[in-house]
Every structure is written in structure tokens, then in C-alpha cells.
């Protein structure tokens, strides 16, 4: 890497830095029409036009070099420390054609650090539509730099940018503004005290709350030659500097940048008025949510049933085609059943990410952030907490990391602690299967009860997060709030390429990420369910045969046989029933007798499998803590599923699918198996309204995700907060589920 040019991509949030990064490097980092996507630096290699290589670093968005939060300080740390291995040979400042004035503030600051700086004006494709004309030559002259006019949407201007990067050594390193005008005497003293250092760099170090090696703020402030200034005085000078810079920028743009208002369309303003309206804004948002959840249920039902049936057939095929033995059983009952438990949710997950991606790409998500900011202020959270809470609907892990742009530590901590309450995509499989089992299929005003339930669960997650924030706000007593500025990007027609990419990548990471864990857990579960040391496990066949002989079949088996026999007698099969050896058609009486014998064999097999499972290793483990989950309406199998899904919530359905399929020869879907499950005490369906709602609420509130705990530990740098979070959320979830079940049953 030593021969490559080091390039830092810097710019305000939502100017398309990551899109430029992707086009330069050919990588596919997540992008969005939504500020705050990048919170850590990302790196990639770009091959330049002259064959040279460039090492590109995509930095988090920042409005200026006057940092206020952790993600912004990443930029300043890099630019102020020449000893940093990533210190750039050239800084590429990305700006948005529509917000050039605001974006140039950062450019002038970086230029004053005397680093070779290139200016990229992005979103050039919008110039005609917005009536913008630009005199690039004059702008280059006034800003003393080279400019690349780029459109990452159309893919134009990237080659020119690569050429400019390759020729970076021709760029001027002169400051564009003399910042010492704001306090000439002070700056003169500053330079005299540290004659070897860049003046603007000294000023930045003295005004930041961060220490930058090798220049330390303490050393600067303890200098006897330098008159000390209070924090308030320094802030006042910073404001003076900002005004001074904007005055310069205004003068530059007055002569080089024109907007023809008659050409610009007022659609954005009209749409904003409606979409951010204090009543209609929320109504539209709720309607959009309803549409999304309705679509998730309606559109994905057919592919979901298809995948479910395919896995059931595949399992049957493996059993019939491979040589009989324990490994064949592991493949059919453990691995295929477990993986099937996550793969069936691909359609729903894909639809969820399709809608999220459309909302982000179109620019609507920023309006949602604005709406939520208004809603959350009374609860003690600033708008800066909204971005993590909204991104938490996909996954809590990046959401917790997104809190880095909150400068107030307590406010950041509260956001970290409450974010896991928002409904992440991992909860979706649990919700969908339980809703499908316990909520009736009817509809009201064209909206199905099931879709409404799902929407209520999303709203419940969000409401719990802000209520918990209110409580924590009172306990932790936040002094001062974060300053919140939301970027309102232009509305854009979502790019099909970006939407498809997001849907495919997110769905893939959901399935592959959870799939590996599910595969491993399914193997362990199948092993524990297929082995046991007890007398009952080893002699299950004799014990059950004896029991059937003495007491007859269980109530469930009797009902099962009656149903199947009724189905058989009333169907066409009866008249077609022929002896396979002779080809003679049986009389109806004989046919029914043969079918009865077959059903009795099947019922006996099921009873043996069930008895063996109950006395297997997993049965012993499950039974040992069944008393804990029984008051919530669950049996030991659900208890096991809760335990394994502590690794990740998606594991819940796969665990049940594996447990129910151990020793089961029937070709049946996951949903069918869950619907047929009988509560050992009540002898009624295990998944009923009371136990189903209790289970859904448990997953709504419990902290069932080890990866999130690890990220919280990393972000808070202590085990104290994740453990408190785990303890509180688990106890709260348990109590809510207990009360719900006791009331409903």
C-alpha cells in the first residue's frame, strides 16, 4: 500500500460519499438517501487511469471540523495527525449540488489545513431539473482547487475524478481563507508559541474537546506565552470564524452558482408540507405501515407455503432415498427441518427490506425522522435518537452503533439501552408463525386482523422504547440535549439497482447469518433429542405397546385416527383402493379395516416418538426448567426454543421444527406440526390465543440476542450496561407474558 495514493472521502452527511466510494472501488457498501449511514471509516482500493492504485477511505459525514460527536471526531483525528498511517495524500470533499453553500464550509476548513484538496460536486444530474448553472472554471479559480462534477446515479464524472486524484500533486496547498482575521493578536501569539506548526491546525486542536497526538491540548493551554481563553470565548471565536467563512462562500457563489427559480419545481415543498404535517404526516405514515404489513402477509403467503412444502418433501425424499441410519435421520429430521425453519421466512424478510429500501431511497425516511423527532421530544429523547430507533427495525446491532453521532453520553446510553425494544427483523419469523396460528383470518375495512396485529407489534416496540427512555431519562437525569439537525434530502425515484441490491444483501445476510447458527443448533438439538440414558428412553417401544394394550390410545391419537378415517371414508380414495399384489378392488369394509390398521401403526409410532423425546437428553433438560415456563402457558419444548433462541431470535421456529420432527415419519409442514401440538395438561392445542399472545409479548420485550449484548458491551465499554439491559428486559418480558396468559386463559 506504500506506493498507492491515500485518499480520504470527506463531506456533510447524505452527500453521497459512500456512493462515490462504491463507484471508485467497485465495492458495495450500504448507501441510502438518509443521513448517518456511515459511522465508521471504510476502506477500499481504486485503480486509477494511469495504472496507479489509490487507497480510498470513506469517512463518516461531518458538517464541519468543529466536532461534537464520536463519529465526527474520526475525521478530525485523521486530518490533524500526520503520523496516522491513513493520513491522506489528498482529501476529496464530496458536496451536493443543491446544498453547495453549506457543504463548502467543511471544504474551506480542510483546505486551510494545507492538505491537497479536491472538490467533488455530486448529484449533477439534478442541475437541469432544479434550474442550476455553475461556472466551474471560475469556481475552481476562486476555491484554488480542481472540481469534478459527478453523478453517482448516472455514473458520470467518475473517470475525471480518478484522473484528478492521479494528478493530486498538481493541487495547490495554499489556505483559501486566513482564519487569523477573527482574532489577529491571539493567532499571532499562537503561531509564535509554536512556530513549527500549522496555524489553523493549532486553532482546531485548541478548540476541540479531544486530544490529538502528537499535539496535545494540555501542552497548548499550559503555555505561558499564550493568553488563556475560556470555553465561552473560544466558542464565540468559533462562531465568528463560521460567519467569516460563510461570507467568503457567499461571495464565491454569487458569481459562479445560479438557480433559476422558474425552472425549479415546487413539488418538494408541497410534498414536504403534507408528509411532515402534524396530523396528515402521522396518518400517512401509519397508512404506509399498514400497507407494508398487509403486503408482507398477503404477498408472501404463497411462496412461504411453497417453500414449507418443499422442505417437508425434501425431508421425506432424504429418508426414502438414502440408506437408513442415524446420519440419514440427522439430515432429514435435524438439518433440513432446522434450515427449513428459517428459509420459509425469506419472502417476508425480502418484502420488509424492499419497503424499507424504497422508503430510504425515495427520501421519505428523513421525513419520518423529522416526524418522530417531534413525537419523541416530550419523552426526553432528541431527534438524534430517532435514526438508531428507526434503523433498529432492521437490526439492533447497526442501530446501537449509529448512536455514535449522539454527543451527550447519557442520551447516547439511553438510546443504546432502549433500541433493542424496537421490532427487529429477527422477531418477524416468531411473530409471523404465531400470528398465523392464533389470530383468525378475517378482515376489517379490507385489512386483515393478522396484518393489523403485526403493525400493532411494531408500534408496541417503538412505544416501549420511548416509554423506557422516559423512565431512564428521569433516573439518569440528562443535563443538556444533543443538538439535532436533520437533513431533508430531495425526493428521488428509487434506483432499481440500489433497491434490488439492498433486498438481496439484507435477505442474504439474514439467512446466512442466522442460518449458520441455526444449522449448528439444529444438529446439537437433534442429537440431544435422539439420545438418552434413562430406562424409559431405551424401552420406549415396550412401554408404549404395553400402555396401548392396557389403556388404549391417547385422546390425541384417537382424535387423529378418527379425523383421518373420516377424511378417507368421505373421499375418492375408498372406491379406488386396490390390493397392490392382486389388483383386486377391496370392498369398502375391508378398505376401512386396512386403513384403520395403518392409522393405528402410525399413531403408535407417534406415541413412541413423543415418549422417547420426552425422556431424551433434551427432554430432561426441558423438563428441568418447565416449571419456570408453565405459568406462561408453554410446555418444555417451547422452553427449549426460548433457551436456544437466546443466541438469536430467529432460532425459535427452527428449534421447534427440529424438536417436532425428531422421530416423526409424517411428511408435514412446520406450521402444520405446530398447529397439531397438544398441551400435555389441558389436552387442547398448545398454540392458542392465550399462549400465543403471551409468547409474542415475551419476544417483543425480551433481550434474546447475544450479538446485540456484545455490541452494547463494546459501545459502552463495560459489562454493567448490557447485563442490566439483559436482566431488566428478561424480567419485564416474563412478567408481561405471565400476566397476559393468566388473564387470557
Amino acid at each position, binding site marked *: 500500500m506504500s506506493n498507492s495514493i491515500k485518499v480520504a472521502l470527506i463531506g456533510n452527511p447524505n452527500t453521497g460519499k459512500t456512493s462515490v466510494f462504491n463507484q471508485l472501488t467497485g465495492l458495495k457498501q450500504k448507501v441510502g438517501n438518509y443521513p448517518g449511514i456511515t459511522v*465508521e471509516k471504510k476502506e477500499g482500493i481504486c485503480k486509477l487511469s494511469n495504472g496507479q492504485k489509490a487507497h480510498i477511505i470513506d469517512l463518516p459525514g461531518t458538517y464541519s471540523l468543529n*466536532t*461534537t*460527536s*464520536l463519529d*465526527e*471526531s*474520526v475525521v478530525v*483525528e485523521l486530518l490533524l495527525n500526520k503520523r496516522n498511517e491513513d493520513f491522506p495524500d489528498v482529501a476529496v470533499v464530496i458536496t451536493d449540488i443543491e446544498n453547495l453553500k453549506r457543504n463548502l464550509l467543511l471544504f474551506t476548513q480542510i483546505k486551510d489545513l494545507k492538505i491537497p484538496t479536491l472538490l467533488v460536486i455530486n448529484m449533477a444530474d439534478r442541475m437541469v431539473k432544479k434550474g442550476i448553472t455553475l461556472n466551474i472554471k471560475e469556481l475552481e479559480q476562486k476555491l484554488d482547487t480542481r472540481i469534478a462534477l459527478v453523478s453517482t446515479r448516472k455514473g458520470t464524472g467518475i473517470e475525471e475524478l480518478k484522473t484528478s486524484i492521479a494528478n493530486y500533486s498538481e493541487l495547490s496547498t495554499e489556505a483559501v481563507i486566513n482564519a487569523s482575521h477573527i482574532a489577529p493578536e491571539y493567532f499571532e501569539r499562537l503561531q509564535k508559541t509554536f512556530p513549527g506548526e500549522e496555524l489553523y491546525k493549532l486553532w482546531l486542536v485548541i478548540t476541540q*474537546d*479531544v*486530544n*490529538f*497526538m502528537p499535539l496535545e491540548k494540555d501542552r497548548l493551554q499550559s503555555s505561558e506565552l499564550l493568553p488563556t481563553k475560556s470555553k465561552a470565548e473560544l466558542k464565540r471565536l468559533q462562531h465568528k470564524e463560521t460567519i467569516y467563512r460563510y461570507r467568503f462562500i457567499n461571495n464565491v457563489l454569487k458569481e459562479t452558482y445560479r438557480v433559476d427559480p422558474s425552472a425549479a419545481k415546487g413539488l418538494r415543498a408541497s410534498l414536504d408540507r403534507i408528509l411532515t404535517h402534524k396530523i396528515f404526516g402521522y396518518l400517512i405514515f401509519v397508512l404506509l405501515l399498514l400497507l407494508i404489513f398487509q403486503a408482507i402477509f398477503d404477498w408472501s403467503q404463497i411462496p412461504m407455503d411453497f417453500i414449507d412444502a418443499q422442505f417437508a418433501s425434501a425431508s421425506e425424499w432424504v429418508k426414502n432415498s438414502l*440408506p437408513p*441410519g*442415524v*446420519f*440419514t435421520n*440427522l439430515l432429514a429430521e435435524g438439518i433440513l427441518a432446522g434450515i427449513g425453519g428459517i428459509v420459509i421466512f425469506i419472502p417476508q424478510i425480502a418484502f420488509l427490506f424492499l419497503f424499507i429500501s424504497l422508503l430510504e431511497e425515495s427520501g421519505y425516511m428523513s421525513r419520518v425522522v423529522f416526524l418522530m423527532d417531534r413525537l419523541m421530544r416530550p419523552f426526553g429523547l432528541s431527534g438524534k435518537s430517532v435514526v438508531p430507533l428507526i434503523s433498529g427495525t432492521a437490526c439492533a446491532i447497526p442501530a446501537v*452503533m449509529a448512536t455514535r453521532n449522539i*454527543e*451527550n*453520553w*447519557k442520551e*447516547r*446510553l439511553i438510546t443504546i439501552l432502549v433500541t433493542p425494544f424496537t421490532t427487529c427483523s429477527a422477531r418477524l419469523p416468531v411473530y409471523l408463525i404465531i400470528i398465523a396460528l392464533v389470530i383468525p383470518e378475517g378482515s376489517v375495512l379490507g385489512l386483515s386482523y393478522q396484518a393489523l396485529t403485526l403493525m400493532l407489534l411494531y408500534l408496541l416496540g417503538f412505544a416501549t422504547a420511548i416509554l423506557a427512555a422516559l423512565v431512564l431519562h428521569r433516573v439518569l437525569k440528562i443535563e443538556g440535549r444533543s443538538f439535532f439537525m436533520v437533513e431533508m434530502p430531495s425526493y428521488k425515484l428509487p434506483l432499481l439497482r440500489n433497491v434490488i441490491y439492498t433486498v438481496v444483501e439484507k435477505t442474504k445476510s439474514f439467512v446466512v447469518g442466522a442460518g*449458520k*447458527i441455526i*444449522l*449448528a*443448533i439444529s*444438529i*446439537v438439538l437433534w*442429537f440431544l433429542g435422539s439420545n438418552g440414558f434413562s430406562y424409559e428412553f431405551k424401552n420406549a417401544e415396550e412401554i408404549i405397546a404395553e400402555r396401548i394394550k392396557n389403556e388404549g390410545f391417547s385422546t390425541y391419537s384417537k382424535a387423529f385416527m378418527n379425523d383421518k378415517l373420516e377424511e378417507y371414508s368421505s373421499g375418492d380414495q375408498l372406491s379406488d383402493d386396490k390390493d397392490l399384489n392382486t389388483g383386486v378392488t377391496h370392498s369398502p369394509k375391508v378398505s376401512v379395516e386396512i386403513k384403520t390398521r395403518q392409522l393405528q401403526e402410525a399413531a403408535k409410532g407417534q406415541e413412541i416418538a413423543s415418549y422417547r423425546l420426552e425422556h431424551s437428553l433434551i427432554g430432561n433438560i426441558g423438563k428441568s426448567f418447565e416449571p419456570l415456563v408453565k405459568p406462561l402457558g408453554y410446555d418444555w419444548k417451547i422452553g427449549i426454543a426460548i433457551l436456544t433462541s437466546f*443466541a438469536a431470535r430467529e432460532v425459535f421456529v427452527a428449534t421447534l421444527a427440529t424438536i417436532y420432527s425428531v422421530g416423526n415419519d409424517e411428511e408435514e409442514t412446520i406450521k402444520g406440526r405446530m398447529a397439531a401440538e397438544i398441551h400435555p395438561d389441558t389436552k387442547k392445542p398448545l398454540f392458542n390465543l392465550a399462549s400465543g399472545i403471551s409468547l409474542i409479548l415475551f419476544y417483543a420485550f425480551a433481550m434474546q440476542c*447475544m450479538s446485540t449484548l*456484545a*455490541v452494547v458491551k*463494546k459501545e*459502552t*465499554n*463495560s459489562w454493567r450496561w448490557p447485563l442490566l439491559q439483559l436482566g431488566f428486559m428478561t424480567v419485564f418480558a416474563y412478567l408481561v407474558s405471565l400476566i397476559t396468559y393468566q388473564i387470557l386463559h
Partner: protein
Amino acid sequence: MKMDFQEVLVYITLIAALVFLVKKYLWPKTAPGRGKSASSCGQDDCGCH
């Protein structure tokens, strides 16, 4: 105790699954991202100290 071929395969698969889970949850790789350093702090009360 004599084990057939399928049993051997089951035990190999089981061990692989257990090793994967232990590595994932008990000895996870250091998560990518920022290392802890005094210069990473944004504010005096940022909780990094």
C-alpha cells in the same frame, strides 16, 4: 462399542457444530471497529474512561 459409518458421520457433524458455537459465543473474534483509545472520546463524560 462398535460404531457404523453413519454414526461416525453424526459424531463428526456434532463436534463441528459444537466447535462452531463455542467459537462464535465463547471466543468471538474481536469485533471490527474502533479500538479503545483516549483519543476516541468525544466528550469528557463519554464513558470510555
